[in-house]
């Protein structure tokens, strides 16, 4: 099977479940292929969980775990715990949900910062250190976290360091009335996720990830990425600007997107199409900018418009 064919099958499969959101689906898949993690911030009921499940179900052999984050959730609930085995008188490690291929961290901002941080190492380094013991995570480890942008009562906003670990932040948003009617029709009898058959194997996904790493990226565009990300530093409305990790993520996600587009090189349009998703959530706005109604996405959009793009 060729690489683009796998990508397109995967995309078609997920899109058949998550209707009306082809761009978001592609970007989320690209994020996965790039080895990053995605934060979905959206209203309840827009299909965040469905998206995660659909991705998991389309991949044969992919493990899918889901953690509902609550204020009393403990780090060990995520990472796992060693329990004394009375028969052998030895501690036996019970791996937590983090040992999986795809992890859905639902309403991640409801857990305490301590628990949120438990994910930090896992997301950043693909490993978990539990009781001094290092455990490597699977090569395809992909976190889809969701959070509700409306309700703030009883939530712990993600710390900046945690935010920076997410390659992208996307929003699904509401679909058109026609699409919504189609969703209703789909789910009259059974849920389409249940009907979804796997379209790719776990190995194929790993191949896709390798292919994405080999997508060609010109020197000039590397400069463009650095300039674009660097423009957030020193922007008067920005208190905390995007890090080099943002540049890295922007490059990797653009490479993965190129795979989905069937290209073997990255064009500036690709970079621009994901720049806001990759950069905006890492920025902390200056208070006066925040209260005068500026948004991080808008600032990134302005920067895209103002930064000279290679022609």
């Amino acid at each position, binding site marked *: 099977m060729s690489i683009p064919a796998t990508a397109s099958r995967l995309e078609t499969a997920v899109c058949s479940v998550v209707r009306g959101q082809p761009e978001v689906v592609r970007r989320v898949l690209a994020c996965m292929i790039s080895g990053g993690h995605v934060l979905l911030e959206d209203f309840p009921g827009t299909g965040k969980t469905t998206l995660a499940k659909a991705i998991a179900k389309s991949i044969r052999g992919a493990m899918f775990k889901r953690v509902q984050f609550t204020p009393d959730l403990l780090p060990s609930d995520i990472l796992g715990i060693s329990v004394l085995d009375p028969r052998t008188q030895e501690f036996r490690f019970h791996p937590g949900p983090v040992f999986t291929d795809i992890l859905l961290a639902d309403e991640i901002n409801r857990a305490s910062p301590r628990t949120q941080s438990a994910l930090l190492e896992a997301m950043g380094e693909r490993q978990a250190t539990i009781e001094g013991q290092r455990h490597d995570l699977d090569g395809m480890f992909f976190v889809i976290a969701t959070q509700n942008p409306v309700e703030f009562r009883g939530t712990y906003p993600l710390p900046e360091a945690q935010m920076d670990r997410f390659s992208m932040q996307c929003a699904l948003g509401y679909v058109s009335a026609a699409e919504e009617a189609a969703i209703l029709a789909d789910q009259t009898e059974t849920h389409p996720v249940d009907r979804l058959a796997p379209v790719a194997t776990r190995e194929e996904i790993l191949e896709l990830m390798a292919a994405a790493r080999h997508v060609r990226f*010109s020197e000039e565009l590397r400069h463009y990425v650095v300039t674009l990300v660097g423009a957030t530093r*020193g922007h008067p*409305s920005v208190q905390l600007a995007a890090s080099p990790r943002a540049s890295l993520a922007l490059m990797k996600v653009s490479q993965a997107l190129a795979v989905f587009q069937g290209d073997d090189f990255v064009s500036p349009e690709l970079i621009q199409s994901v720049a806001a998703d990759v950069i905006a959530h890492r920025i902390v706005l200056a208070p006066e900018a925040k209260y005068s109604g500026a948004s991080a996405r808008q600032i990134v959009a302005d920067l895209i418009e103002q930064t000279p793009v290679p022609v």
Partner: protein
Amino acid sequence: MTGRPMIGILLALIVESSHWTKFRWEFNEEARSRAWQLTTIAIALAAVIVFLDRGPYVALPNLLTWLPPLLLPMQFIQSFGLRDSLPFSTFSFLANHRRRRNLRLGLTEDALFHLNFGNAYLIATLVASTLGSRANSWPFLPGIVILTGWLLLSANRSRPLSLILALITAGGLAFAGQRGIEYLENWFGNSGPGRSPFDPNSVSTMIGKPGTVQLSPDIVWRLRPWQRSLPPPLLRTATYNNFRGSTWQNLRVTVTDFKDLDTIEPVTGEIYHLLAGDLPADAQKQSIRADLPRYHLRGAALAESPLALPGDAASVRDFELDGIERNTFGTVRVFPKRAVIEGTVLWKGETNPENPPTPREDLEVPALEKQVLQDVLKELRLDEQPTLQKKLAVIRDWFQRNFKYSRTLTIHSSIFSPNSSTAIAKFLTKYHSGHCEYFATSTALLLRESGIPARYTTGYAVMERDSKRGEFVIRGTHGHAWCRVWDSDSGRWIDFDTTPGSWLASLPPQSSATQRFNDAVKRLREDFFLWRNRPANRFAVSLVMSAIGLGVAGFVIRKLWKSKRRLAAAKIATTYQGPLIRTPLHSLERQAEKHLASRAPGQPFAAWLLGLRPALPDSNALDEAIELHQRLRFDPAPPVTSELDRLTELTGQLKSALKARASRREFQRS
């Protein structure tokens, strides 16, 4: 600003320092409208001051010269703000009002029109520099053309040749225009702004030209006699000795050049300018005697303006002048330090400002008039009168009895038939009606024919008393002409006016509302100007003005200092220095610009070119070309020659398709 390099350099430093400093401000709508209000208030104040200082005709150019410092607040916001352009609502009260209403109603801000104030500021600077005092020097025009060219070329690199051509054309036109204006100025005898058009050596009269005498009713001088004494009846501005055609002039005299007046300083700080030249010390003292009658004179003056003085003026003092000089005919002109001058004139002196007569010139009578004059003299029998006073009385009496004053002139000098009599002859023998120029000219010629040296003098009659203010007002309409007669007994020139006294009554009344308003403005302007510039007030005025200026500036600077922000290094990010790849599709840019809106810096070329789709009959070629372009441009893998050739071919197709469409559109339009 060419006359004030320090201010110009300071402004340039402030405006241009934005390029190498990292301080920036985020100006919101309120700050912008504040700055605009400050600018408009400053412009309005400057307009009032310039108007009061200079009068309406020079006020506008003068104000335009000061535009760059006045517009500085707006340019500061443009240079040091974070926005590239300012919304139109900043400048218009109505637009701002609508914006507020829209915001109140929950509509979004409609910032349809944006203005980069830098462009407006550039124009203001150009205009100001061309109006500056050094703009007439020869390096100015080439300099400004080169500067503008440099600016335009650096802003628009794509068409340097046409730009240079346009600049050369503009420069040539400007040069021609400047020459034309200079030529016109010479033609009209106006030696430039700030200089009086008054010619002390020639005045053309209306003798022999039918029509009505029109004079400006505006106030020229205001005269306040010392301690309720009487003012001099006639104030001279110039004297001439030669009549030719219809013009009085100064010809064939030994010395017509102006000379500086002698000055004496009896008490330190009290400088008197003596009207008569080369006086012995004793006579000098006589000219500043404390019991001489005196009056206070106030009015606007330009360089080389004549000073209105009585014929027997002794000395003047207190005028703030760079120079005061007189010629041998007693015409006095001044070089004022400021636009409005005031001072004291002492008169009824025992000396004359003018030199004694030169018999050849002061007795010369035009040949054409000789016969008529002799006939008149025969009738008057002047020879029978023993003294000059008696002779003058006879002449005055004759004119009073037989002649009528009229501002409506009917006498036509027929220059085409030399046999017919001249205008003066017609006046003396037939019409017996005319205005002061006729009377003064005839009298001067009659006296000369009878052997008495006489000259023609122009000036003003002091006749309108402003009892409310205790002063006399001299208007353009009070302009008059009379004779200066040589009294050989006393060795002095005396005034001799034969115009019937009725001329004073025949003047148009000055009571119209517009005239009263003009008078009030003029008075206010001059009085305020003098008050402001009086040594006692000057310090206080400058102190108050600088205090206000410094206060406002300090307030603004403090506010700015508090809200300043440092632009981090990232804004000046390094640009890509590596090799730039160009594909054949890049050559399509020029043509595409005609069909598409111009490309924003952040818009990718391919995405921009996709806008051409509706303009093309077949968009497949475009899609394929863009794909090839992207590959050749951004794929670091080595290019494939066949792809390059294909793209060249596709670009050619696209070009011809666009050209065909453009010509079709042209055709439809025509």
